[in-house]
């Protein structure tokens, strides 16, 4: 029988960060780069440029931020439909990259061989879901139409499959999934002909309170997504401050592996120069959970202390 004293904390973080649009999910990643972590980003949102002002000159000059923008080419028709221009490649490209990151001259190798200083980021789950839906609708010949029930199931299988891959032991680096928030209650918003409110998802008890979930596809995925991650965090505005919430609230389930150690709120601070503070935000969260700095930043730790010591 296993001895509980032999249990160890996982050496990596597999987390999801939920936030409303514009809260600063992508920009929060800058603190990690500035702290020395090696980020590899699957950018479904096409918003990586927003991170640039928050990177220190040293981070910009380093080789610690890699990303690939994964969007499908779209076109409009004379009757106002938005269709895919050619084959939808965003999700298929993501699936190839998750096997082996080789983009042009850049070859970062197999994701399964990335070390614990790497953080694989998916930005965002929402747009990844959209890409998956577009992928299945084009295959089914329903591009530009409302999704058929079969399309929802198919796209959800793809999203679930990708989450399972990220959660699996095959991927040994850190994982961060950025997600928008969807609010779901226990019943449909409109009663049926008999005046009854139907349960809107098998995963949610009827008449349960309005709850915030990560924005997975449809109604099935949002309550399911959280189970893949040991860290569920939220970024929000509190007054004029941006904070990272790490513990639950009545309408939002959050968690972290060290609730006794990690503060309920971590500020997403900027340095005097306006860069993301590598002592705060996500970098602080990683330091508290993992109990260490990334190896490449240990050499520059002394320099960092001199720069930010007030």
């Amino acid at each position, binding site marked *: 029988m296993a001895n509980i004293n032999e249990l160890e904390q996982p050496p990596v973080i597999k987390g999801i960060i939920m936030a409303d649009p514009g809260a600063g999910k992508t920009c929060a990643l800058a603190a990690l780069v500035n702290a020395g972590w090696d980020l590899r980003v699957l950018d479904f949102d096409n918003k990586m440029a927003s991170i640039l002002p928050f990177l220190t000159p040293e981070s910009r000059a380093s080789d610690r931020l890699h990303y690939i923008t994964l969007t499908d080419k779209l076109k409009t028709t004379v009757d106002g439909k938005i269709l895919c221009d050619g*084959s939808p490649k965003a999700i298929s490209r993501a699936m*190839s990259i998750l*096997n082996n990151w080789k983009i042009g001259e850049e070859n970062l190798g197999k994701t399964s061989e990335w070390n614990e200083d790497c953080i694989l980021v998916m930005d965002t789950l929402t747009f990844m879901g959209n890409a998956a839906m577009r992928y299945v609708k084009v*295959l089914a010949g329903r591009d530009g139409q409302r999704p058929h029930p*079969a399309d929802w199931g198919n796209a959800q*299988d793809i999203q679930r*499959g990708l989450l399972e891959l990220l959660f*699996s032991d095959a991927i040994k680096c850190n994982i961060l999934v950025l997600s928008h928030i969807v609010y779901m209650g226990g019943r449909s918003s409109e009663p049926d002909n008999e005046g009854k409110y139907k349960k809107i998802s098998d995963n949610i008890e009827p008449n349960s309170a309005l709850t915030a979930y990560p924005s997975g596809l449809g109604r099935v995925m949002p309550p399911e997504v959280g189970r893949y991650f040991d860290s569920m965090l939220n970024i929000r505005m509190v007054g004029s401050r941006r904070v990272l919430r790490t513990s639950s609230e009545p309408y939002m389930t959050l968690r972290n592996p060290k609730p006794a150690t990690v503060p309920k709120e971590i500020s997403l601070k900027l340095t005097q120069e306006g860069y993301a503070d590598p002592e705060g935000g996500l970098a602080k969260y990683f330091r508290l959970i993992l109990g260490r700095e990334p190896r490449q930043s240990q050499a520059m730790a002394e320099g960092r202390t001199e720069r930010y010591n007030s």
Partner: protein
Amino acid sequence: MNNQQQQQSPSMYCKSVPTLQKAWDNTSIKALKSCQYLYNKTIGTGFRPISVHPRLNYGTYFHWAMEQYEKLRVQKISQEEALHKIIPLVLIRMKNFPEEDTTYTKQNLVRAIVWYVDQYYNDVAETYIMSNGKPAVELSFRVPLPINSPDGDPYLYCGHIDRIVTYAGLIYNTDYKTTKYALDNKYFKQFSPDSQMSGYIYGTKIGFNEPVAGAMIDGIQLAVTHNRFARRFVLRTEQQTEEWLENTCHWIKIAETAALSGKWFMNEEFCSMYGGCSMRDVCSKSPSTRNLWYKNKFHYDPWNPLDNR
């Protein structure tokens, strides 16, 4: 299968243990998992039930039609012309097909073929063309497993892929599934976990050395007055594929133990499943008298995974 065909295919059995299969496929493994005794009395010894419900073979006609269709299309023959060539041949093949069911009829099959071609007229999933210029349709594979037979060489896992397609830069192997049931989430749930799909994905990756993303189920719903179609991806992580491999090797080792000991055990829990096992009437008799009943219900018609279908 006739004796001539049987003679042409290599033996699926081990030389040193003639009651043990060396070449396995999903049909054999499935029978073994259901009941060792059933497996031994049917696939293991080359016998099959004399009477089989026609619907079990109905899908094979659709598979054959689509195979011919894909081959004609690669030769740049138009869809209409291809259908005109194939439909009469399908009807000839189904000449003796008993129409005991209003769903499984020749007319419904022809309609399914025509409507399928129409549904996917500009199919974005294109048939993969192999390096020899031939379309990747109706391909047989035999891949070694990581366990050795008593002969000293690896066991083989065999399979037959309907079609390999490329879609949006990824490769999938596809499988046509004809059914009278609705093509909803409940129908597609049966494919995960599923040994056949996992085996096809493994076989395609190893047998063709291609980075197969997964499988695509091409569902064809058969109804009296219409057909419906749906496609669904079946994906497997590397962990799932490794788990399937370990599972399959485990079951083959069970067969090895049974063959070496000569004892194939009954799984009574399977007797009543799926409308009743084909061996139930035989197994319900005392063991010393079972042969008397067995010969009335089964005839020699070996199933060989090494056959090129």
